[in-house]
């Protein structure tokens, strides 16, 4: 496999981009429809749940230092672990397909209605496959280069939106049934807060010091940033429109009029959005690829990523028929489905590991058999 050590900043950006990357654009509409003017609280609650899940994953990962999730599956559960590993590979492929589909939906709805979605999918997957071939260093450097640009433009747009801000629209604060609406929007735990489990594939490239803290920081900041985005959206275009539009943020920025000549700022948000989709897609595809590499023992990423992108391009088309189906799926199943990968399997693996180790200790077996994990025990 690849030899690379990411810097802390790069690792943070990877986490943040995976978590915040596409969610900021897709999530606000649905959240506002449910949470009304208090929708900004929901990402915060989701973020807390996300952090708890992340702690679970980190606990699992710390038992197997320098191992990725596929190796953890195989080491902890033996033959059955292969099944879990396959599930995770499927999950990664699915994330890649989702992300690709997000791109296609957006491009077709907003920019080029006549061009078939698969063209967008294939072009992006082609470049993403190239990124995967180039390796994690290239991906993280790309995100390191693009993120400051993306988020500074984001900030600029946010500042511009102040003109249209109306405090009355977010009032009265905390007046709705927050827990009820949180339960209605529980899919926010699945997307985006289970998705950083992708990073479990990259922990072996994590910086030597503070990798875990950075991971948690990335998730926590995502919750804050998402909350801020929702807050701004509510205060700017209002609950009514935000909950009816598919891409409220796009519309919001489309309608900004700074001076008579600074109109039509949607180009900026399109670029940010496409960049963030790309980074997330590249990471998801990379994780899926190296997961397969690990499981099958093929060192060559190129051979894997090409059929994989063909698969992802196909799945991206079939995974949902239209945006409404996405929303329905999101409402009904998303939470339960994501939880399987975010909580059930990691918790199960953790349990197995504990039981195994306890069992082995009682039998007085030497510690070495469990590989590197033992070293961490005191």
């Amino acid at each position, binding site marked *: 496999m690849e030899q690379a050590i990411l810097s802390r900043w790069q690792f943070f950006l990877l986490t943040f981009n995976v978590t915040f990357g596409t969610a900021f654009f897709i999530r606000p509409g649905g959240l506002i429809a449910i949470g009304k003017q208090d929708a900004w609280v929901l990402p915060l609650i989701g973020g807390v749940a996300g952090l708890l899940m992340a702690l679970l994953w980190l606990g699992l990962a710390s038992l197997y230092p320098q191992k990725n999730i596929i190796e953890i599956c195989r080491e902890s559960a033996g033959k059955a672990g292969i099944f879990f590993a396959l599930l995770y590979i499927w999950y990664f492929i*699915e994330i890649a397909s989702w992300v690709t589909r997000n791109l296609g939906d957006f491009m077709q709805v907003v920019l080029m209605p006549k061009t078939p979605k698969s063209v967008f999918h294939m072009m992006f997957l082609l470049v993403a496959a190239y990124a995967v071939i180039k390796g994690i260093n290239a991906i993280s450097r790309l995100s390191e280069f693009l993120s400051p640009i993306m988020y500074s433009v984001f900030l600029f747009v946010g500042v511009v939106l102040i003109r249209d801000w109306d405090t009355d629209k977010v009032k009265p604060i905390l007046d709705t049934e927050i827990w009820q609406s949180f339960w209605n929007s529980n899919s926010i735990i699945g997307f985006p807060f289970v998705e950083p489990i992708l990073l479990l594939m990259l922990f072996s490239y994590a910086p030597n010091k503070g990798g875990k803290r950075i991971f948690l920081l990335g998730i926590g900041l995502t919750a804050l940033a998402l909350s801020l985005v929702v807050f701004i959206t509510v205060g700017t275009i209002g609950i009514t429109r935000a909950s009816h539009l598919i891409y409220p943020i796009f519309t919001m920025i489309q309608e900004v009029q700074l001076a008579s000549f600074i109109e039509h700022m949607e180009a900026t948000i399109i670029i940010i959005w496409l960049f963030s989709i790309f980074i997330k897609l590249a990471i998801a595809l990379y994780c899926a690829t190296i997961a*397969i590499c690990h499981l*099958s*023992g*093929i060192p*060559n990423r190129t*051979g*894997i990523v090409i*059929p*994989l992108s*063909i*698969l992802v*391009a*196909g*799945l991206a*088309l*079939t*995974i*949902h*028929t239209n945006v409404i189906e996405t929303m329905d*799926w999101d409402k*009904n*199943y998303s939470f*339960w*489905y994501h939880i399987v990968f975010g909580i059930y399997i990691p918790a199960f693996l953790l349990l197995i590991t504990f039981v195994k180790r306890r069992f082995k200790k009682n039998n007085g077996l030497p510690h070495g058999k469990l590989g590197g994990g033992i070293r961490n025990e005191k």
Partner: protein
Amino acid sequence: MKNKKGTEVILFLYALGISVWLSIFLGKPLNPHHLIEWMFKQF
């Protein structure tokens, strides 16, 4: 030995990808989520 397994995996991936595409062209897209939904409904 290892190499052979590698080719198998790659071929399998190709087959998977192509079958998804075929299903699209044949007009009956394979939607994995329908399967998952069905599984959830069983519980």
